């Protein structure tokens, strides 16, 4: 489960720290105490920044770093597709082996495929992603997020 890629992101996180944003959320995983404070800044529907600070295990930390790397500069619908695909992968209980298309879409995030076999850790990997979605809904309204979902 601890892929090199994950350890790299853990040791050298991308975009770590809190910067200006349109909305801020604080999410906690009550079962293990992992916490994240996350801000999003939008430029229209383009993600201008995702900044964050938190404490938690390597999985939750690395996952936030990957999220930053993947989503910043994307348009919302595309970001939502990535989020959805990542969620699906994580909930697959190890049943999905990422194909080329998924690898292209998720990039470093495919390294988390192995985590999906550990139910106790799936929530760690999803913590920042849930926080991002929540912050986005606050920044742009539920509607934009829901619209993105259907696309």
């Amino acid at each position, binding site marked *: 489960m601890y892929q090199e890629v994950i350890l790299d992101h853990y040791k050298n996180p991308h975009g770590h720290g809190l910067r200006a944003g349109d909305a801020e959320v604080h999410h*906690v995983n*009550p*079962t293990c105490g992992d916490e994240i404070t996350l801000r999003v800044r939008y430029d229209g529907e383009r993600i201008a920044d995702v900044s964050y600070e938190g404490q938690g295990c390597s999985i939750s930390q690395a996952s936030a770093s990957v999220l930053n790397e993947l989503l910043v500069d994307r348009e919302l619908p595309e970001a939502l597709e990535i989020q959805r695909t990542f969620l699906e992968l994580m909930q697959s209980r190890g049943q999905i082996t990422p194909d080329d298309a998924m690898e292209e879409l998720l990039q470093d995030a495919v390294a988390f495929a192995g985590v999906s076999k*550990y*139910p*106790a*850790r799936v929530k760690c990997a999803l913590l920042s992603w849930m926080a991002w979605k929540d912050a986005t809904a606050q920044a742009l309204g539920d509607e934009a997020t829901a619209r993105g979902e259907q696309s």
Partner: protein
Amino acid sequence: MTEGHPVSDVSGLPGLLDTEAIRKDFPILDRTVHEGRPLVYLDNAASSQKPRQVLDALADYYERHHANVHRGVHVLAEEATALYEGARDKVAAFINAPSRDEVVFTKNASESLNLVANMLGLADEPYRVDSGTEIVITEMEHHSNIVPWQLLAQRTGAKLKWFGLTDEGRLDLSRIDEVITERTKIVSFVLVSNVLGTHNPVEAIVRRAQEVGALVLIDASQAAPHMPMDVQSLQADFVAFTGHKMCGPTGIGVLWGRQELLEDLPPFLGGGEMIETVTMSSSTYAPAPHKFEAGTPPIAQAVGLGAAVDYLTAIGMERIAAHERAITGYALERLSRVEGLRIIGPVTPEDRGATISFTLGDIHPHDVGQVLDEQGIAVRVGHHCARPVCLRYGIPATTRASFYLYSTPAEVDALADGLEYVRGFFG
């Protein structure tokens, strides 16, 4: 026996299961008692026996997978959690629950029933039971569906009302609109009586309860082991049953409840995994079902119940019901020919389960039971934890024979012959 229980008709009764094969699954049924007499176990309403498949599941759990569940990151903790939560999936499928999260594991049906009573006493409106409100039960309830409501009524000042019984052993619903009123908060009743065998009409009661906005709790302790259960078609709000009567281990019960209700209602016991977060001064609670499962749950027992559900499902609940109908019909007929025997409850097989209570002349049930026992026949005697039923029919106690999927016509014959012997003995 793993698959395919061909229907046998050696006895000429339609719908019988292949009990010869089934009985091989139950090690205890090979036992002899009182110096070599084969055991004739007719005390299934008190508790059923356990098939090898369930005992193997228990042993395998403890020998290979045991750890405390939830929050563990090691292999055993993950395996134990998967097995425990997998049992929840199985039970949810068995009763056709819309969601697995509606299945709460308790220690027995009594805890399930008490849980609902206590939740309603502590709930906010519109569920709250307090003075000025009414609770409705029936005169044929098991003590476990009477005493919790008496305690709740005492603590809150609510009024306890009940449906009486007809001479035939059925619910008297003739004044249903006076019993269930706008003040009624909860109607709790037994689906199949553990004394009379009566199978109660759900629809009429649920309809009236819904009319007045009362919740409905069904005690399915004597139903879930014996017939297909579908909590959605029952249209109740809660259904309670118990593992040990349906081939499962002791120490495990189930409360099914509608999701919105389980979300809205307050927790009852505190501690362990039922919390979301705890500080010294306050706590928030995990979502249902965990909110209602305080402390280390009956893990192995849930796994065993899951195996029991698999076992029953492989045979088929429809076929088990048909088998019991055939046996019950035969038993009613055979018993009616025993002189002085009076059946307490419905005397024909319609709308009744495989439990038959009776008296035998003025021979006390304790004597009947004891002399039957000396012949290897195990029945239960007494008030069967439903004393008001005995009071209603003016008898101190009954003798009760109750059948299950492994019961045979030959066992019915043994019972009838045994009763003739009892008559002679005390005659």
